[in-house]
């Protein structure tokens, strides 16, 4: 079930919303939201509900174990065992076939061909997200950052909450703990306006901008070898804005839905294309993931407080390579992560010089580097990426793809919003009558677009 589907908007959401506010006690509301979230998740593949329930139960009992254990060795066991189980599940479903096929390729390259079995594994939607939820919960409990909850329904509500279940933001328990604890005292009308405002803006970003751009560039990517230089740049720029509006649109909708149920979710995007350098970019892009990687990987590795400079670069590279791999089981994602790791290292080395450049140049330079990185992220293989880069950086004549006018208009609007407008967390969401009318008009256009039956899933669902 997609947020941008009629069944979600006209059936699921009204039932869950009115049902939720009819209930009075905390427990009832936890159970209601958990049940609704499992139904929401089950519409993709009901079999994977058991997997999520298992992961939830393991983490919940690990939390209880940590709560009762004082002995450091026991505490360590209560952390290591469930985290290993979670990572094994993630590894199996997401990376088994990738590992096997990579091994087969390597052995063929070494002239010792082996043919290991490839399993027909379906990747459970959102497994990367809820696994990070549970792991962050257990690590925070181990570190004493949070006190694990004794309430199973509160915990399962936190893990499975439908608004952020399948594509984030990756919410840490401490970020929503207070709102979950006060769920029975939540005021329905308090965040009604801001919730709908976030939701509507997110929906418009996704349906009107991201999907429009996608409709034009998707076919062009398939025919990348025949693009002109201009066409290749348009295509890559199109993807740059598509992924931003798609993912930030989803995050805005998730935040908006959270508000509607009295739960404040954290910001996931802070105008990343306004970043002044690559480090700044990672503080603004997919914030919930980058902070998770920082807190649970980079800092435990030693972070920047290490004895030698090369160790900082090593830590950065490991973090970004694994961050790339988190996005998907493909070497292009790993390369994309490595590319950003190298850029972060270079910024560590030459940041002082970079920071002296004019601000506009810093922004443009950072944006350019990010755009080049998206080529690897979008391409299914290195040959496609290399072909696209060759088209971009050598002059070539070729075909222009259909829908050029639409793309230019969409890119102009997208660029204006991404580079110059305030983001949804910077807005005060107190609209005057003109902006309300504009929002209603935009939302109507969105509903009509959805009604035509051409919905597309969110890009980050595949991760």
């Amino acid at each position: 079930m997609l947020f941008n589907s009629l069944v979600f908007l006209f059936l699921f959401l009204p039932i869950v919303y009115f049902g939720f506010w009819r209930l009075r006690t905390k427990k009832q509301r936890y159970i209601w939201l958990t049940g609704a979230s499992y139904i929401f998740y089950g519409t993709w593949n009901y079999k994977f509900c058991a997997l999520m329930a298992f992961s939830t139960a393991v983490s919940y009992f690990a939390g209880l174990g940590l709560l009762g254990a004082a002995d450091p060795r026991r505490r360590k066991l209560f952390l290591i065992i469930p985290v290993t189980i979670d990572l094994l599940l993630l590894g199996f479903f997401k990376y088994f076939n990738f590992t096997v096929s990579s091994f087969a390729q390597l052995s063929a390259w070494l002239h010792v061909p082996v043919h290991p079995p490839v399993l027909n594994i379906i990747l459970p939607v959102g497994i990367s997200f809820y696994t990070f939820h549970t792991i962050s919960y257990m690590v925070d409990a181990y570190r004493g950052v949070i006190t694990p909850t004794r309430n199973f329904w509160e915990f399962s509500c936190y893990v499975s909450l439908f608004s952020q279940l399948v594509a984030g933001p990756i919410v840490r328990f401490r970020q929503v703990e207070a709102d979950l604890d006060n769920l029975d005292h939540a005021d329905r009308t308090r965040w009604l306006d801001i919730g709908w405002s976030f939701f509507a803006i997110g929906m418009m970003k996704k349906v009107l901008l991201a999907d429009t751009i996608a409709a034009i560039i998707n076919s062009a990517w398939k025919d990348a070898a025949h693009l002109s230089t201009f066409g290749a740049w348009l295509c890559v720029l199109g993807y740059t804005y598509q992924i931003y509006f798609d993912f930030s649109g989803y995050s805005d909708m998730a935040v908006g839905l959270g508000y509607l149920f009295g739960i404040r979710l954290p910001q996931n995007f802070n105008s990343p294309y306004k970043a002044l350098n690559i480090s700044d970019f990672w503080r603004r892009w997919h914030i919930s993931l980058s902070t998770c990687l920082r807190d649970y990987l980079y800092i435990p590795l030693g972070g920047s407080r290490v004895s030698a400079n090369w160790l900082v670069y090593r830590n950065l590279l490991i973090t970004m390579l694994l961050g790339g791999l988190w996005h998907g089981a493909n070497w292009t994602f790993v390369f994309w992560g490595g590319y950003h790791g190298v850029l972060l290292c270079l910024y560590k080395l030459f940041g002082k010089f970079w920071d002296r450049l004019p601000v506009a140049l810093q922004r443009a330079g950072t944006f350019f580097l990010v755009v080049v990185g998206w080529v690897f992220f979008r391409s299914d293989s290195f040959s496609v990426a290399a072909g696209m880069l060759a088209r971009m950086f050598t002059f070539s004549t070729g075909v222009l793809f259909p829908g050029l006018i639409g793309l230019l208009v969409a890119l102009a609007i997208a660029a204006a919003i991404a580079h110059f407008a305030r983001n949804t967390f910077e807005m005060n969401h107190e609209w005057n009558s003109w902006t309300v009318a504009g929002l209603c008009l935009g939302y109507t256009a969105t509903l009509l677009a959805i009604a035509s039956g051409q919905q597309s899933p969110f890009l980050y669902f595949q991760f």
Partner: protein
Amino acid sequence: MNDTAANRGRIWGIGHLLPRLMLLFFLLDVILRFVPVDPLTFRAWEAMLRHYPNAVGPFIPNKHYHRDNSYGGVAGIGSLPALRHYHSVDFTTDAYGFHNPPALAQSNPIGIVIGDSFAVGSELPDDQSLSAQLTERFGGYFYNAGAPQPLHLRSLEVVAQRLNLHRGLVIFEFLESRTLQDPPAATPDGARGAAQAFFFRAMGPQWTDRLGTPLNELHASPLRALSAKLQKKIQDDTVLPNSFAAFVIQERLRNGEPIVFLPAEFKSPNHPRKAAERWAAYFAWYSSELRKDGLELVVLLVPNRTTIYAPLLAQPRDVSASRAALQDLADALQNAGVFTVPLERRYAHDATVLLNQEKYLYFLDDTHWSGDGTAVAADEIFKARE
């Protein structure tokens, strides 16, 4: 004063307006479903088809549909206005909901035509359907009982009883692509069908229609159709690329005319011999059951459009497998004692000859046969019966 202002602010707040907008959208969708969809359609099928369970006939009874600028469904699916071939369409149904214009109807029919949309005469004027062409050649009335799916034996017997037909022909139009499916079971309707039949008997046709009509109207969403139309308008390959074109295959005939196919039209059964045997067994049973009622079955084997026109493309495609599968089916039917009229050879010959005159046995923008196609089919049946 402050409270009033605050309330006004709330009423016009986005949190109140957007849910109401959604409610309005929902209500509009429901209300529009009770408005006739005819103006939104470009052919009879969508406007006439009944979506509620009905006793026999698949279309809304006693209804006439006319459109001057109808065009083929494949061009519609692909949203390809340049490839549309506009033509006039009349589609008139009888009291039972079959495509039988009163002007052509006669008492004491000598036969019934059954089959799928080809038998119905989709896209054809009333007087060019197969049943109309047969009526003209045989000099006796052939009742058109075509439906989206060929009638089951029990339903056919009900039609024959209503028509008081105790001796005569049953022409079963059988399209090549149907060999991809398994034949229906001998008692196809099962418990659900029995329950439905009981319901219809208990209710009577009038009440069934009275209850069913609103359900029928609820089935189609004009709002959705309008949104889709709007999408197709915008996706004109200039403003936005036409994503619908991916659903069809665009080709060119060797005389230069463009033709569009659905990918499904190129499919052949994986095991044609087995498929032929299964269908032969089914038709042998069907034929023997009809014989008990004094009716004689004639199976008309209609090739897919691709089997006839793929060899005539500017870059011809091999259709030997399809031809062989049709031949297998014809042989199996004849061996099973079923009277069969295969059309493939005659069609292949005529299509080649007519190509230079820019005449076609099938529509170039639709899967169905044209008036020329039904005329040839009626000729073949007439010759075979002589």
